[in-house]
């Protein structure tokens, strides 16, 4: 345990994901690269990081998403709420390449067409996703989970000869501190509590250094204390990444949305959009969702 205490604690204000990250400062890296270096290749000149335009996904005639149009700005923390079956998870599937839309376009920045990219290319381009059910590698230790997720060249040959350098180990330590799993790094991830798994998965997201983070019900099954801590964590990340949160827990949404935009989905389309207060006052929203 003495070794662990030698690692300097991470001050809450320190940006965790500083190396090579430009998106949290002024946008406007056009003309610098031609998309060969993926992180720099993201063109966010128009201020938006994600555009979904008239996306439709139908499964055997059932339209899980119907003409959905949505965009997320750089550095924004956007909450998406909506009743079950509103198409929230399907929308994330479209953004991460798991599901191909029947029609419509999905752009990451100005240039990357997500509907034509594979899951791993999208992950490399800078979109990280946390699933509804915590999915960590249960047979790997916490440390190994973070090591696998860490942003680096993920091709076969480089992976075979990959050795962690001290900077990378430092990054893992910083994330461990952030997700409060310090001292647990050699435990198998399968042995963690539900809330700890959720955090580990968030940690795995952060260490990928994504520009856009998608969180699907991040506090599902968490205790009140864990939920509060997660809200705190998301508030720390605000502005450093663009974040999209899908959540049912209204208290949690109110906590993290603050004055930002909240989108209400219903039957696969946007029902209402605005601040939490505006949305809560909207009659249609009350009818389909909040009113009960």
């Amino acid at each position: 345990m003495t070794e662990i205490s030698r690692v300097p604690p991470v001050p809450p204000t320190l940006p965790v994901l500083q190396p090579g990250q430009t998106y949290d400062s002024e946008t406007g890296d056009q003309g610098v690269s031609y998309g060969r270096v993926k992180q720099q290749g993201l063109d966010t000149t128009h201020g938006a990081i994600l555009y979904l335009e008239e996306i439709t996904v139908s499964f055997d005639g059932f339209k899980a998403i119907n003409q959905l149009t949505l965009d997320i700005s750089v550095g924004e923390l956007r909450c998406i709420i909506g009743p079950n079956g509103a198409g929230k998870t399907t929308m994330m599937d479209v953004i991460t390449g798991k599901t191909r839309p029947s029609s419509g376009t999905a752009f990451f920045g100005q240039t990357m067409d997500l509907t034509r990219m594979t899951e791993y290319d999208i992950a490399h381009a800078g979109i990280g996703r946390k699933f509804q059910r915590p999915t960590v590698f249960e047979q790997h230790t916490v440390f190994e989970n973070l090591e696998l997720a860490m942003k680096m060249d993920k091709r076969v040959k480089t992976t075979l000869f990959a050795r962690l350098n001290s900077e990378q180990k430092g990054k893992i330590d910083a994330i461990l501190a952030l997700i409060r799993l310090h001292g647990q790094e050699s435990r198998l991830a399968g042995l963690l509590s539900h809330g700890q798994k959720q955090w580990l998965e968030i940690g795995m997201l952060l260490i990928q250094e994504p520009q856009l983070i998608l969180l699907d019900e991040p506090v599902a099954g968490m205790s009140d204390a864990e939920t509060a801590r997660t809200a705190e964590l998301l508030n720390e990340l605000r502005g450093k990444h663009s974040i999209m949160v899908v959540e049912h827990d209204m208290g949690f949404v109110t906590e993290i949305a603050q004055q930002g935009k909240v989108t209400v989905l219903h039957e696969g389309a946007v029902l209402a959009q605005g601040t939490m207060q505006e949305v809560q006052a909207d009659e249609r929203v009350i009818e389909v969702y909040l009113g009960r």
Partner: protein
Amino acid sequence: MSHPSTSSSLFSRPAWTGILICTAVLALLPVLNLSFPEGHALHISSYTIALIGKFMCYAMAALALDLVWGYTGILSLGHGVFFALGGYAHGMYLMRAIGRDGVYQSRLPDFMVFLDWKTYPWYWAMTDNFWYCMLLVVLVPGTLAFVFGFFAFRSRIKGVYFSIITQAMTFAFMLLFFRNNTGFGGNNGFTDFKRILGFTITAPATKACLYLITLALLLGSLLLCRWIVASKLGRVLQAVRDSESRLMFIGYNPLWFKLFIWTLSAVLCGIAGALYVPQVGIINPSEMSPGNSIEMVIWAAVGGRGSLLGPIIGAFTVNGLKSWFTAAFPELWLYALGLIFILVTLFMQQGILGVIGKFRHKRTALEKSRDRQSTSGETA
């Protein structure tokens, strides 16, 4: 250490001790066979040498299977085809090396004379060169595995569907090789080898040499496999096994990882087959029968999959039992094999190694946490 980079940390200390003792004992056997006359108390019979030589080839095949099944979660029921193709590639050289000493005293192998062929088919070109054939031993199973794997993995065929296709593949190859016109000796395959690189193949010294080469390559493969599974790539493979879709969402393309380990496994299996043929003296299409591939899976399961050492132990144990059973109660062997498989599946899911491991579990866990702590100590 969590990220071993030196060979000394590839295995735990007791495992190293076991490996070194086994290697030393196995290496001593052919020496005892050659240096003491028959009837002497320390003499090891040539039969034993041939038997253990064969077991080592099986062990290498089981080791190769463990890379894909135990670590990556891809159950192959067709590894026999890679084993046999490696064997056939080496067999082609051995047939050419017979020269005019065959029954018909032709420069062509007997089975070609029998078919009334006048010249070698094009794919027999240059097979009189030993090193070219060694290249084929690696390239033929490797290429087949690469092409087959590419299409299967790209189509995201997984689990039992993949297993069934591999089974069908080995069956198809068996039927192909059974045909006389395929040019590989049909039903009888290749046999009656006379010499290898000029040495008489039946001479005890040649046999001992082949045995020692097999031992060295088995040990080398074990170390290579261990190095691979202990690398970050090994952890990616295990992640493929446990949650392939998650792996894609953190930016890995599972296709190339699966293809890499699948092809490597096929190559190792082919090398095992190439070592098997000169020691056993025959290769025929029955090596490609679905039953043979399934037996390989049983070796790995009995020894303990996902441990590399386990499948080696399993191959020796099951084949040792088989040798004894088929001599003592020939009709009962298949029942016994079935029973072993059922018992292992029900009561020893980690195989023989798992039972040993249970006794050592607590100690290892302690050591591991100590290792990890010293690793994180280095970072500070």
